[in-house]
């Protein structure tokens, strides 16, 4: 009888570990291109990594522009792709606040206050995220839509390209999923 209880316990334990969302993992979609939302996303990503969680951040749509490296140039783009490239922020330092942008004055002010109050910038947090092994996946379709190429994205350890199934596979086993 005692043996059966032990067996049953082991089976239950295996079941619990295999259930969806059981992993101490955070999967986050960064859809927005707004500076404030990028700040929030990076605080949560680095915070979760500090809490010992595995972290995957999936950048899609407007979010992808923040990963562009302003120093990198790539050729071979169509006219529409070049236009997109010009209109969208060239990297995280050109992202705007969702509110109170005020033709750049509000965004500049927030950045100045953050620096004064010693709040880490998106770039600094990306560095920390890299050290923690936070995985960044860029949505392939968004890049294709906007004419972005992997060669014009920032140098980040573990940067890769993926689609919705990649995100859903990560999200499915994560205890926390967020859409920003």
């Amino acid at each position, binding site marked *: 009888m005692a043996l059966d209880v032990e067996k049953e316990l082991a089976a239950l334990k295996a079941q619990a570990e295999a259930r969806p969302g059981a992993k101490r993992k955070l999967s986050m979609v960064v859809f927005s291109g707004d500076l404030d939302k990028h700040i929030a996303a990076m*605080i949560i990503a680095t915070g979760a*990594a*500090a*809490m010992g969680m595995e972290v995957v951040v999936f950048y899609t749509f407007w979010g992808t522009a923040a990963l562009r490296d302003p120093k990198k140039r790539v050729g071979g783009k169509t006219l529409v792709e070049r236009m997109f490239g010009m209109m969208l922020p060239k990297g995280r330092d050109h992202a705007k606040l969702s509110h109170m942008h005020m033709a750049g004055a509000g965004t500049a002010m927030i950045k100045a206050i953050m620096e004064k*109050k*010693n*709040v*880490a910038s998106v770039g600094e*947090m990306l560095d*920390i995220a890299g050290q923690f092994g936070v995985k960044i996946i860029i949505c392939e379709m968004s890049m294709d839509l906007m004419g972005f190429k992997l060669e014009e994205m920032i140098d980040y350890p573990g940067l890769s390209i993926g689609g919705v199934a990649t995100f859903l596979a990560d999200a499915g086993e994560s205890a926390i999923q967020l859409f920003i």
Partner: protein
Amino acid sequence: MPDYKIAKTLDYKGLKCPMPIVRISQEMPKLSLGDVVEVQTTDPGSLSDFPAWAKTTGQQVLETRQEPGLITIFVKKTK
């Protein structure tokens, strides 16, 4: 107010969320099991963040001391 044998004092004064817990988590691998570190911070969020971080990561907050303009948190490496 007990006194601990402090292995290291960590100056996190001026750091804002999420940096205090980012730094303490980066510090953990450098410590030995049972080490107690004294964390000095000026971030009031640390008062709730450190216990939450410790609970999640299996570490222990021994004590939190508050004085005007300074928070001192004693963290023991238990894992």
